[in-house]
Structures are given as C-alpha cells and as structure tokens.
C-alpha cells in the first residue's frame, strides 16, 4: 500500500498522509475497476472503442493519484519523462502500419517489461542505500521482478527484430542449446537463493540481472519468425506478470490487479492461437518449428512441385469467372496483409456486388499473423463485418459456392491439415475451399506459407493459380471486372 511505501521512504506516516493515502488508494481501486470495465467493453465491436477509452481514463487516474503521493517530489524531471514518453508513443502509434501490429505490440511490450525490471532494480538500490536491510520477502519479489521484466524486455526485442525482418525469421539453434538454457535457469535460481542471504552483494545482483536478460534472448531465438505472434502474446502476459511483481515489491494492489488482468488476457490469447494452429504451447516454444516464408518455403516448393501440373489463369479469365458467378467467397490470408491489398479487395467486392454476385469473406481464426488479423485489415478497408464469416459458419457453404478466391492464404486452406495424418499441421481446422466448384488462388509463387509445408490445393484440377503480388493481381481483377 502507499501508506506502507511512504512509510518506507520517509520513515514515518503522518495522519495527514494517512487521509491522503486513503484517497489515493481509493483512486487506485477506481482505476483498477475502470480497467476491468474497459476490458469488458472490449468484448463487443459496438462498445470496444469506448472500452479502450475507459481503460485509458483509468490509467490517467492512476498516474495522477500517484503524483499526489507525498513521496513523489521531483515533478519537473518526472513531467519531462512523461512528456518525452508520450511524444514517442504517440508518434509510433500514428506511424505504424496495420500490418506491423505484431511488431508494434511486441516492442511496446518490451518497454513495459523493461520498466518493471527497472522498478525492481531501482527499489533494490533504494533499500540498499537506505536501511540496507533487504527482507527475504523483498528479495524474492525483487528477483521475480528482475527475471520476468528482463526476459520480457530482451525476448520482445528479439521477437520484434524477427517480425520486422531485421534478423532472420528462421530458428537460430546451436549445439547443446537446451542444456545451456537449463544451466542458466538453474544458475539463476541458485544465484537468487544465495542472493536472499547476501542481499548487499551488488555484483551478484547485477549478474542475475544480466542472466535474466540473456535468458530472454535465448528463449526467443530458437523460435521461428512465423511463431512470433504467439511469442509476443505470451510475452504480453509476462509483461503483465512483471507489473504484478512490481506491485508486490511496492505493496501496491493496483499494480498487482492490472498485472494479473494483462497476464490472464495474454495467456488466453496464446492458448487460442495454439489451439487454432492445433499445436501445444511447448511445441511452439521448443520445437524450432515455423521456419517463416523465406527459409523452408521455396526449398520444399522447388522440390515437390516440379512433377505436378498447375493450372494457371490470367486476371482476365479470372475476372470472367468471378463476374459470372452467383456466389463468391473470398479467403484472405497473410499475403493480403503483406501486400496491403485489403482496399483493392474491398473495391473488387463492390464491383462484383454491382454485377449481382453474392460475395462473402471467410475468416480463419489464425489467418495472417495475429488473432483477428484479417478482421482488423478488412475493417480498415471498411468491409462491413456482417460480410465476414467465421470458419464454422462458412465451411458448410463452400459446396454451394461457385468460386472461392484465395488471396495470399496458404496454410489455412491446406487440405493436408484435413486429409494426411503425416502432415505437421494435421488436425488444424481449415477453410475447405477445395469443396467449392472453382478455386482461384492469388499468390506470387508456389512457395509455402509459414508452416513451410507444400499445399496440395494448388495442384487440384478445380484450382487455378493467379501468380503475382496480391495487390497487383486484385487491382487487375478490378480493372477486368469493370469491363464486364
């Protein structure tokens, strides 16, 4: 509690402080409640935006309340800090492209984790330079804060680098990797325990900080770039836990509550993603799986496709098929995101509808690279969400669909997931476009998606490949459809 803290910092808690302290505590409770309500409102598109505002207000209240705390004195510096942070944050938020969301969340995450870690370190030094006596409780919570915060920081940075393409997406492995990691973890534990008895040992402390930072790196590098969204969401929950840890260190309930909320949400989203990919979290984290487009993709494609025949089609013919169809289902995937083709797709839909074609969008839960990725992009392009259909709703309809138009999607429409036990993605629910009368697939080549496995769909008789970047191809289709 603040009372306790201010007691720590100033040695005494004046009655005046007490009243103020109570006020602050209540403000904190209000803030926490606003977070909860905000998250609740985030549950429906109608209220989501308002929900985000609500949470933001809660944050404002929390900050103001904190600034009123007696123990907070050097406002000038703090305000400067806040202003700098706000500016950077605002600019980042304005600039980022919708497709770069995972990176964005990733990097923000890292900063949050870093902050929590810094709080732990700072508090440690304060106590050290102050009373000097670090209680066991304080020691434990401090170590927790350092560990979680540190891992979140470096882990997120690596994830960012991979998603941004600054570093290779393919898993980085080295001999004895697991043993090394294991030793480091064991070392950290041993060190922390020793630290609890010799809390004055600053060198040891900094050493432990370094180890936790290193752990973050080692934790993420062996994971394939395409699995980064899962990692990001997991780290998101870590950053929450880090905040909670900070809360324990400062005995601040609101930090604990908010942290727990974020922790829960991160974990749940991670689960959802794993389930939709039908892989276990451990598999994602330790199997050096998803090799990312770049690497594995081309290779496999080159190998296996040579023999089989592919039916190619040009924009003109494709446009004919679409224009004269009764029903078209559009299946967007990561490719549409990369190509930023959502606006042209929207345009295409409009023209088709003018021709009396019934157009629906089939959204796979893990199409793209974040949960709900496609929804966000299509929303950006003003596609009414009444037109978006979940996997379970649309799959039965493919039988009556004339043309399924797959735009930059691959794994989520890979029949192997349904048919071949051997496939690594076997069992992952897919959009069954191969049930449609005709399927047009827009992608640049025959190379694979993030799962790095070849896709039978491309070689079926009913399938026609329209090779090229999603943006150009869709644009061409639009041009052609206009003619009809």
């Amino acid at each position, binding site marked *: 509690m603040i009372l306790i803290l201010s007691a720590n910092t100033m040695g005494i808690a004046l009655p005046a402080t007490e009243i103020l302290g109570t006020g602050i505590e209540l403000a904190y409770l209000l803030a926490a409640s606003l977070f909860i309500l905000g998250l609740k409102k985030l*549950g429906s598109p109608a209220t989501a935006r308002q929900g985000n505002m609500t949470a933001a207000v809660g944050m404002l209240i929390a900050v103001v309340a904190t600034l009123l705390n007696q123990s907070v004195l050097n406002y000038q510096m703090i305000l400067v800090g806040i202003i700098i942070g706000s500016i950077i944050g605002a600019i980042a*938020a304005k600039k*980022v492209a919708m497709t770069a969301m995972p990176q964005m969340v990733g990097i923000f995450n890292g900063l949050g984790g870093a902050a929590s870690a810094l709080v732990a370190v700072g508090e440690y030094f304060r106590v050290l330079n102050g009373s000097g006596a670090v209680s066991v409780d304080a020691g434990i919570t401090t170590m927790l804060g350092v560990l979680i915060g540190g891992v979140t920081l470096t882990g997120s940075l690596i994830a960012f680098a991979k998603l941004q393409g600054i570093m290779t997406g393919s898993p980085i492995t080295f001999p004895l990797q697991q043993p090394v990691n294991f030793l480091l973890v064991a070392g950290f534990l041993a060190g922390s325990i020793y630290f609890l008895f010799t809390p004055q040992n600053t060198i040891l402390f900094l050493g432990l900080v370094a180890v936790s930072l290193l752990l973050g790196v080692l934790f993420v590098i062996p994971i394939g770039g395409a699995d980064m969204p899962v990692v990001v969401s997991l780290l998101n929950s870590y950053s929450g836990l880090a905040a909670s840890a900070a809360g324990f260190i400062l005995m601040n309930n609101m930090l604990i509550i908010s942290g727990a909320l974020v922790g829960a949400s991160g974990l749940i989203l991670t689960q959802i993603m794993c389930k939709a990919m039908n892989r276990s979290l451990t598999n994602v984290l330790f199997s050096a799986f998803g090799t990312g487009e770049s690497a594995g993709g081309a290779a496999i494609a080159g190998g296996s496709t040579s023999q089989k025949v592919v039916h190619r089609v040009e924009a003109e013919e494709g446009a004919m098929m679409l224009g004269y169809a009764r029903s078209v289902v559009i299946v967007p995937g990561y490719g549409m995101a990369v190509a930023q083709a959502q606006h042209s797709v929207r345009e295409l839909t409009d023209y088709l509808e003018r021709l009396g074609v019934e157009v629906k969008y089939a959204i796979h839960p893990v199409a793209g690279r974040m949960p709900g990725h496609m929804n966000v992009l299509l929303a950006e392009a*003003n596609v009414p*969400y009444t037109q978006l259909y979940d996997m379970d709703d649309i799959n039965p309809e493919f039988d009556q669909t004339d043309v399924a138009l797959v735009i930059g999607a691959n794994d989520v429409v890979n029949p192997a997931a349904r048919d071949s036990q051997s496939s690594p993605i076997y069992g992952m629910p897919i959009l069954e476009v191969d049930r449609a009368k005709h399927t047009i697939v827009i992608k640049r080549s025959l190379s694979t998606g993030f799962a790095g496995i070849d896709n039978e769909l491309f070689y079926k008789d009913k399938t026609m490949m329209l090779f090229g970047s999603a943006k150009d191809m869709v644009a061409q289709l639009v041009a052609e459809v206009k003619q009809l």
Partner: protein
Amino acid sequence: MAAGLLTGFVVFVLASFVGVEVINKVPPTLHTPLMSGANAISGIAVVGALLVAGAQDWNITIALGLFAVVLATINVVGGFLVTDRMLQMFKKKEVKA
C-alpha cells in the same frame, strides 16, 4: 510470509479470475485490439516507476526510475492510441454496416 504479501497474493488470484472470465468473452474479431489494449494496460508499471523516481535527492534509483517512467509512458500512450486507431475502423464500419 508477511501479511501484506499474503493479501497481495489474494488480490492477485482474484484479479486473475476476473481477467479469465472477462477475456474469455471477447470474440476473435477483437482479439488484436484486445492484445494491444491489454498491452497498454500493462504499462501500469508507470505507477511503480513514478513511485521509485519520486524521491527528491538525486541518485541511481531516481535515474533508473525516470528512465522507467519514459519507457512505461511510451507503452501506455502508444498502446492506447494504436488500439484506438484499430477500433476506430471497427466503429466506422459499424456506422456503415
């Protein structure tokens, strides 16, 4: 274990229950905004940062604290703004749908 820590733990468990209940109700459509929204909330660490950076005198703790304030603020402000940017679209769409 100190009473304070214990209660902290109780609070933590309860909050987790609330989190799970609330989040599980969010539909896939909103998972990305939820992710970044939650991320913004995790910037609450800013409060911790403020408390640590608060003291008047100038020392390592304050320095670390101030740095933490900057980072956390980026997380908070950036997070909420970007979430709002995403949700704005949903709103737009709704108006039109």
